[in-house]
């Protein structure tokens, strides 16, 4: 999943990129559907998109106001503002009047250039759009400049553009509105001249703010849950209590007695109750009696899975090497320091549970919802309904959070909704509502993970040999891997770590376990556990060597040539007052991690309160390349840290005899106002192309807390969450 990964040649050969994986998933679907492959198939049956003169990403109204078309969904990460700012910068538009609209689903025009499919994820929205939108903006600007040059009979080189006004040194000036008709007739240059980033006037300033704060503060922003259409029905589904169980039989007598319940029928994922409104659907579902066939279901409890992972790890059953270098046969003689770590399943627990609105009439399919992966969803729905993928029309709305949850290759809740709408037929809209219990017990969790390490320390106190075994489920289960490759997202963060680069002998393996429990990427994916292991082990090694953990990291980063790690480390150290006195009972911990092309250092100040760790202040330093919106980069660091902190402190999905024990937010504790830290974000000045910020804030906070607790109590942490239920 590490799109921006700077994997060396041999590592790249082992680990497929997310592009391989997503294309793999999509092509697998398409191939099953029509017996041959490529992405072009997705366009068969697709509506022809009609663009205006300025192409697929820019619309300019008669009033001269610029609308930027976003191919990426906005679900909190600030992408809409960031993408619009890229266009506005090169176009020299009036930022205060720029609007953002969501694009249609069309992989050919709106594909993610780092994925090969249309979709948002892997913190790639800005990174993949950067040059595409700069060129779109610069091309449109050239059209206005050339139109003005022709109109005023002056050289184009003498014309300037500022805030949507085109001017000539003679004093002539015209607005975009004035020049719109003429500019629309100009052919844009194939390779428009882009600005030197040093001359940016909008990008990098505090002016780049969200465009949706008003509608998200007055209740008018529209989410899937808010959709009402004439004659719309609402559906809820009784899902199996165990993963892998199927409907054996059901009795709908009582359900059909509920006022407002229209229809009850079986679908592949359970029994659907369709009603005139949400409350009737819920009461109808409550009244339903379903008997389940759980012959093939997961029936283990969490402790048994932990033990199984330990066994797989010890035996390295079916494992594959992810980083093996140096003389492994001779490198591990003598004393080894051993570490073991266990990580639980995690729920994304987005504020808006999963939902969708579908209309189906024969080959006609329309979906209206917060769609994160249009291409994946089109493919999955097409397969389920037996229609052409391109015929699946999608209108993408805001989504109430995702954190990876809405990019599900099986598109299970979208397919569920489509199947129900097909049964209802006649293009009658059906809104599928998952309640919190459906959402929390519905799987697609961050997988459980086991890490085992055995490290030989050299005479200098630094690692000389590093054996590392990771056991987890793959989020890419079912997607065919090229020969010899594996799901790199299971180990990303250990794979590519500067600490492994600086260690002469490394023996890193990954083994993939299997279970009917479906798993998925969860904000920062592999880094959710690898960062914890790498960063907490480093502090323990530093403590044994009696070296300050910051000095210890400095030495390893220098040895590995990890200049960006070193830069964020120094910035966080300087801004946090590392080494200065703190009140008794409070300690600092530091962690540094690279993910999605960005490097983040975090210093957490931790105190024990009522037997639980409490984080008061976090100082965060981030290198994400050119900073488009410093305000929203800070927001993502704040949010990413809270998300990681919440999971580290409290979150775990556990099983008893196969049943999920947490059904709602009363059982699945999440971080609240009174437990939230103050986050201070500092951005490293950079001229590199922008990289992601949606996920990179998350990984470092958990190890920073563990390292603070190590300093405070002398005790290391070997499993999460810190606060056990």
């Amino acid at each position: 999943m590490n799109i921006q990964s700077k994997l060396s040649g041999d590592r790249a050969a082992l680990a497929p990129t997310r592009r391989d994986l997503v294309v793999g998933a999509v092509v697998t679907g398409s191939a099953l559907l029509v017996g041959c492959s490529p992405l072009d198939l997705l366009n068969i049956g697709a509506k022809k998109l009609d663009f205006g003169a300025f192409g697929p990403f820019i619309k300019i109204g008669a009033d001269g106001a610029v609308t930027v078309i976003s191919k990426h969904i906005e679900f909190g990460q600030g992408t809409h503002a960031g993408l619009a700012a890229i266009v506005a910068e090169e176009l020299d538009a009036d930022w205060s009047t720029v609007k953002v609209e969501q694009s249609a689903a069309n992989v050919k025009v709106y594909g993610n250039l780092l994925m090969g499919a249309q979709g948002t994820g892997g913190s790639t929205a800005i990174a993949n759009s950067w040059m595409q939108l700069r060129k779109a903006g610069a091309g449109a600007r050239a059209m206005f400049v050339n139109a003005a040059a022709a109109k005023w009979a002056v050289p184009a080189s003498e014309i300037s553009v500022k805030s949507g006004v085109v001017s000539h040194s003679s004093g002539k000036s015209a607005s975009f509105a004035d020049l719109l008709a003429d500019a629309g007739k100009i052919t844009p240059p194939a390779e428009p001249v882009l600005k030197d980033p040093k001359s940016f006037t909008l990008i990098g300033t505090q002016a780049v703010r969200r465009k949706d704060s008003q509608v998200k503060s007055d209740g008018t922003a529209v989410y899937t849950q808010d959709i009402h259409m004439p004659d719309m029905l609402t559906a809820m589904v009784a899902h199996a209590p165990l993963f892998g169980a199927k409907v054996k039989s059901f009795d709908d007598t009582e359900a059909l007695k509920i006022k407002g319940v229209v229809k009850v029928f079986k679908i592949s994922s359970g029994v659907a109750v369709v009603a005139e409104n949400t409350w009737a659907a819920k009461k109808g579902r409550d009244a339903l009696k379903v008997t389940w066939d759980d012959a093939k279901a997961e029936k283990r409890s969490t402790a048994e899975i932990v033990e199984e992972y330990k066994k797989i790890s010890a035996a390295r059953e079916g494992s594959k090497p992810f980083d093996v270098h140096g003389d492994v046969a001779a490198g591990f003689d003598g004393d080894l320091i051993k570490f073991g770590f266990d990580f639980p399943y995690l729920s994304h627990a987005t504020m808006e549970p999963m939902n969708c609105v579908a209309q189906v009439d024969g080959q006609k399919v329309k979906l209206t919802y917060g769609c994160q992966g249009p291409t994946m969803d089109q493919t999955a729905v097409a397969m389920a309904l037996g229609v052409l993928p391109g015929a699946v029309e999608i209108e993408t709305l805001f989504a109430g959070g995702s954190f990876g949850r809405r990019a599900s290759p099986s598109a299970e809740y979208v397919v569920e909704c489509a199947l129900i709408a097909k049964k209802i037929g006649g293009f009658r809209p059906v809104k599928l509502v998952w309640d919190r219990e459906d959402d929390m017990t519905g799987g697609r969790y961050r997988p459980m993970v086991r890490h085992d390490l055995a490290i030989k320390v050299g005479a200098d106190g630094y690692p000389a040999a590093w054996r590392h075994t990771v056991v987890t489920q793959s989020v890419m289960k079912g997607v065919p891997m090229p020969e010899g490759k594996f799901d790199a997202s299971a180990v990303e963060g250990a794979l590519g770590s500067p600490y492994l680069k600086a260690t002469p002998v490394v023996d890193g393996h990954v083994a993939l376990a299997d279970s009917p429990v479906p798993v998925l990427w969860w904000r920062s994916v592999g880094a959710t556990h690898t960062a914890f292991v790498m960063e907490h082990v480093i502090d323990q090694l530093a403590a044994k060597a009696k070296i300050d953990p910051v000095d210890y990291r400095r030495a390893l980063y220098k040895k590995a040539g990890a200049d960006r790690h070193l830069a964020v480390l120094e910035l966080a150290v300087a801004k946090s007052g590392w080494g200065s006195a703190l009140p008794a009972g409070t300690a600092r911990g530091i962690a540094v991690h690279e993910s999605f092309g960005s490097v983040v250092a975090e210093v957490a100040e931790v105190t024990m309160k009522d037997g639980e760790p409490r984080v008061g202040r976090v100082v965060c330093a981030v290198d994400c390349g050119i900073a488009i919106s410093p305000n929203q980069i800070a927001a993502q660091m704040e949010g990413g840290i809270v998300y990681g902190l919440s999971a580290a402190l409290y979150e775990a999905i556990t099983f008893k005899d196969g049943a999920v024990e947490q059904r709602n937010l009363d059982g699945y504790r999440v971080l609240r106002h009174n437990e939230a830290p103050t986050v201070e974000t500092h951005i490293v000045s950079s001229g590199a192309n922008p990289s992601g910020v949606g996920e990179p804030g998350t990984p470092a906070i958990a190890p920073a807390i563990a390292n603070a607790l190590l300093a405070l109590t002398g005790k290391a942490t070997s499993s999460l969450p810190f606060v056990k239920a």
Partner: protein
Amino acid sequence: MSIALEINGKTLQVEAEADTPLLWVLRDELKMTGSKFGCGIAQCGACTVHADGQPIRSCSTPIEALAGVKITTIEGLGGEHALQAAWVKHDVPQCGYCQSGQIMAAAALLAKTPRPTDADIDAAMTGNVCRCGAYQRIRAAIKDAATTLSA
């Protein structure tokens, strides 16, 4: 049952089952969708509205309990309330789904405690979850709005 509800200063006649939570009457019957469904068991606060000025969780309040009670929803706050202006100024929302509930909880707090301390904010807001982690901006925006309203 048929029940008259006083919502945002208007009396509205609603046809719904007596046990229907206010949230679903607001959303499905009255198409007032600003109040959100998050958990259904009064644990997340996304559905927060005011009942006679007190913040309540509309997902767990049946309409039969609300005869004669003055209900205010996010739609009734007007869009230009000092809290809403502060929310925009601080770019508080990320996904935005919890923010109607956050703002309604904060509005009830400021009505009772015009200059809240951090402890007051903790006490009033801890029932409102934000998974995007906008907590520190919410706190800053509440303090900012308090200053505006007290000026």
